[in-house]
């Protein structure tokens, strides 16, 4: 079977997260989508428009449909934002590596997200919370440009905080009238929280700039490179390591990534 | 009913499109081969439109505008005249039959002439048969 040919799937529900982020619930018409691990992506496409690599924000289970949180940016994602439940999409995957969750067992987890970057984290957070007993303390630090740009509000403010041993800290770059919470960029905000590095794995995802400064911050906080993880995003055409688009050095983000440890990142040329 | 040639026409809204309307109000019958696309002025017609029509399966293309001197915008049709004089020759240079592309001046008062041009051109295209040149595979 040609890996470039997608499964036809149907949009079942659309949830508006923010003015420019929507979460699509998608179920393949043949009902089967291979099991996927937290951090993996899939090629989501509109027929006649094109494809876009999107991280899967849902945590896999046999019955739940796929969820994708999509930020309106280019041609495909803009068209997706015009789509309605019942519309057909193409989906192929899952692609890429995933967060090495099993290697984290027994440790504390620190998730640092920015903006739409919470999408890939959400799948791993929910995956880990599904295995709550296997981990120590779980801290979630999340920030967005403004209160209206915060994704997954329900989980942020209700679901996750209600889980034992889970702390959620939310900040915004710029407040609005209602906002009572902290106002700060994520990296300094994180440093201010002084999370305990010892025995903790840090996972971060967000805009390139935010990732860069967060990694530096984590370094200063004493997190060793091999216990810091992030995901990279590059333009992709095939998603299966053929089209050449997403190569960084001798790696292809689509198959060798998107998850990289801080140590691996240091090995890559700065072409991302 | 036999399959008719497909004739795509670009008509300036002030003269030729109105001329076609007049043909209508005068109930002058002409072949249904032609489908007009309304443009503000023959000077608006980019040769890319003509090429696209041939690519997508038009058997002929007509660009129609006001008579020289009568352009609602003073000069649009005079630019069009130069542009399509070249384009027509170039298309022939590429091997297209001359009858497949025409630039015509049709005023708002020339409903009869519009019908006449369509009849003529349709007859030419029927004689030539379907166009395959420049055309993508259906």
């Amino acid at each position: 079977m040609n890996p470039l040919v997608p499964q036809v799937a149907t949009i079942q529900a659309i949830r508006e997260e923010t003015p420019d982020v929507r979460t699509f619930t998608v179920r393949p018409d043949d009902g089967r989508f291979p099991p996927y691990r937290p951090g993996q992506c899939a090629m989501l496409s509109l027929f006649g428009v094109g494809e876009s690599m999107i991280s899967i924000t849902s945590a896999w289970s046999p019955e739940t449909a796929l969820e994708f949180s999509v930020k309106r940016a280019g041609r495909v994602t803009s068209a997706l934002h015009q789509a309605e439940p019942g519309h057909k999409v193409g989906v192929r995957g899952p692609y890429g590596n995933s967060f090495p969750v099993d290697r984290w067992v027994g440790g504390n987890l620190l998730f640092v997200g920015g903006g739409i970057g919470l999408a890939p984290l959400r799948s791993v957070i929910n995956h880990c919370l599904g295995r709550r007993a296997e981990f120590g303390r779980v801290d979630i630090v999340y920030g967005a440009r403004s209160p209206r740009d915060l994704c997954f509000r329900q989980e942020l403010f209700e679901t996750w905080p209600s889980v034992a041993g889970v702390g959620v800290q939310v900040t915004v770059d710029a407040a609005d009238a209602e906002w009572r919470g902290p106002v700060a960029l994520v990296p300094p905000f994180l440093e201010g929280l002084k999370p305990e590095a010892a025995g903790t794995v840090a996972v971060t995802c967000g805009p390139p700039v935010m990732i860069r400064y967060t990694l530096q911050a984590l370094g200063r906080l004493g997190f060793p490179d091999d216990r810091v993880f992030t995901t990279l995003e590059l333009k992709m055409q095939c998603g299966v390591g053929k089209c050449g688009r997403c190569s960084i050095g001798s790696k292809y983000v689509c198959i060798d990534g998107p998850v990289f440890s801080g140590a691996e990142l240091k090995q890559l040329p700065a072409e991302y | 009913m036999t399959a008719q040639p497909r004739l795509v026409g670009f008509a300036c809204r002030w003269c030729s499109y109105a001329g076609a309307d007049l043909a209508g109000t005068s109930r002058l019958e002409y072949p249904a081969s032609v489908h007009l696309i309304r443009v503000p002025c023959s000077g608006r017609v980019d040769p890319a439109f003509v090429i696209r029509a041939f690519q997508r399966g038009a058997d002929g293309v007509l660009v129609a505008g006001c008579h020289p001197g009568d352009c609602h915008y003073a000069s649009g049709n005079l630019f069009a005249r130069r542009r399509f004089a070249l384009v027509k020759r170039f298309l022939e240079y590429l091997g297209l039959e001359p009858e497949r592309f025409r630039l015509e001046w049709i005023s708002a008062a020339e409903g009869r002439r519009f019908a006449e041009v369509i009849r003529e051109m349709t007859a030419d295209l029927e004689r030539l048969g379907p166009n395959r040149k420049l055309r993508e595979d259906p």
Partner: protein
Amino acid sequence: MPRIGAFICHCGLNIAATVDVERVAARARAIPGVVHAETYKYFCSQPGQEKIAEAIRSSRLDGVVVAACSPSMHEATFREAAALAGLNPYLVQIANIREQCSWVHSDRETATVKAAALVAAMVAKVRRDQPLEPIRLPVNPRALVIGGGVAGMQAAWDIAEAGHAVVVVEREPNLGGRMAQLSETFPTLDCASCILTPRTAEVARHPRIELLTWSEVREVSGYVGNFSVKIARRPAFVDWDRCIGCMLCQDKCPAPAPIAFEHGMGMGKAIGVSFPQAVPNRPVIRREYCRRFQGRKCQVCAKVCPVGAVDFEQAESCREEKVGAIVVATGFDVMPAAHFGEYGYGEYPDVIDSLAFERLNSSSGPTGGVIRRPSDGRIPREVVFIQCAGSRDPDRGKPYCSKICCMYTAKHAFLYRQKVPDGQAYVFYMDIRAGGKGYEEFVQRTVEQAGAMYLRGRVARVYPEDGRLLVEGVDTLAGTKVEVAADLVVLATAVLPREGARDLARTLKIAADEHGFYSEAHPKLRPVETMTRGIFLAGAAQAPRDIAETVAQASAAAAKALGLLTRGELAADPLVAEVDEARCSGCLVCRHVCPYQAIEPRELAARKVASVNPGLCQGCGACAAICRSGAMGLHGFSDKQVLAEVGAICL
């Protein structure tokens, strides 16, 4: 995804008889993005528009295609209907399946297929339409009137009376134009100046009217509501602010000068006014006749002037006026002598034209209203009037009828008989055109009371014989050759646009016909508007007409101008060009093809891009077509829209 509604109109049986509208609707429904398709008897009717509005609301439409009659019929109707239902009116497109389908094809099958294709094309187009807002243009409430004749004065007066400031530009030193040269007016024979002088005074006095005489329009830029006009005032060599109008200068000036006003019948002075009642009552020095300017040392005027207003150093001055509307009332000229060799016009002093005859008639004229022939000042016993001199003569003159000649010739014959009771007037004519209130009756009076002899036919030639002029012609009714020995021959020469009318047309960017008369936007429905928004026409500048019509038209032009000026701002069609600055390379080839100078370069960061003035742009799309990169777009007719239409048609 787009949510487009397609509405297929039966137009009674006009469409439905030839096109299977239900099938067209079904085809439309099959187009991706079309979420609603229905047919109805008459969508243009109130209930029809209601249906569209209802569908827009209930199906949350973001695009509407109405398949019906030509967009020239009801595009506006349906756009308004959509707007009322909350849909941007520019998201409505019309598929013309009546004029261009059902009315011209009889085969139901082919017509139906074509109609469906036309609908598909419009669906493809409307999908790529953007919501647009009309362009709001501020309107400068002032008006400019070009020409200070009876037309210009009437227009200026009406506009000023309505409360708007008006600038009147007149090429001559004073107001009045042609009418001021006339003696009496037909058919009532009131004296022209008796009617005109009070009106002239009113205009001159009016607080909201500014007179710029001895001046010319040099440059016009801008657009409707926002014209900027450069006006040059020729040097009068008299400081009009100082001048008290005593005219001592004129009395004492030793240099005679033929002044245009007397039309060759009388002389004026190198300094002075054209006629006694001139408004403004201020003199000008005509360089070409002034001794001082001819290098001789005459200073008479300067010496006699009690207020030292004479200023030989005065130079041309230029000023700029900002106005919202322009009324063009530049009037007419008559055909020059050169055309009439066979009549000896210009050769024999006693062959004159009608305007000259008006001066001979005028009590304020050179002869004090006594009709004397130019050669020897004798009172002519026989006068021959030749009509259609240059008019209705496609070969040698003008093809058109000058319209006023029949009447003023009758008037001349009548007045002549009044002043020379034993004189005999002959009138050579082609036809008598006396359409107008009391006109025909007046011609009859001329024949019956004034005993003028009307001879139907053309005059072959006029030649002198012992002090008189022999007029050879044919009486085509009698079929006989006629020969009249006359003391004076008066030619009803053809009416022409004012000299320089074409240049002014270019300056104003308005159209003129082959003869130089300004073209109206529509001969029936927009007779006083030009194709250029904000510029209106009054009087003989547009075509030959008499005073009554001229004044009526002047008021009409004023009303049109007021319709514009009374609005604080006006809305222009947003279907204009717009530059995608990110793509523009700044080659500005678009600038060369823009007929409206609407494109200007704009500095953007370190580079130059084209930018369109939406006020000037008329949406012709020449720029969009010549732009290679596709940076220049045209709202409503973008490359992508037209290409999509092509694609849809060719499916």
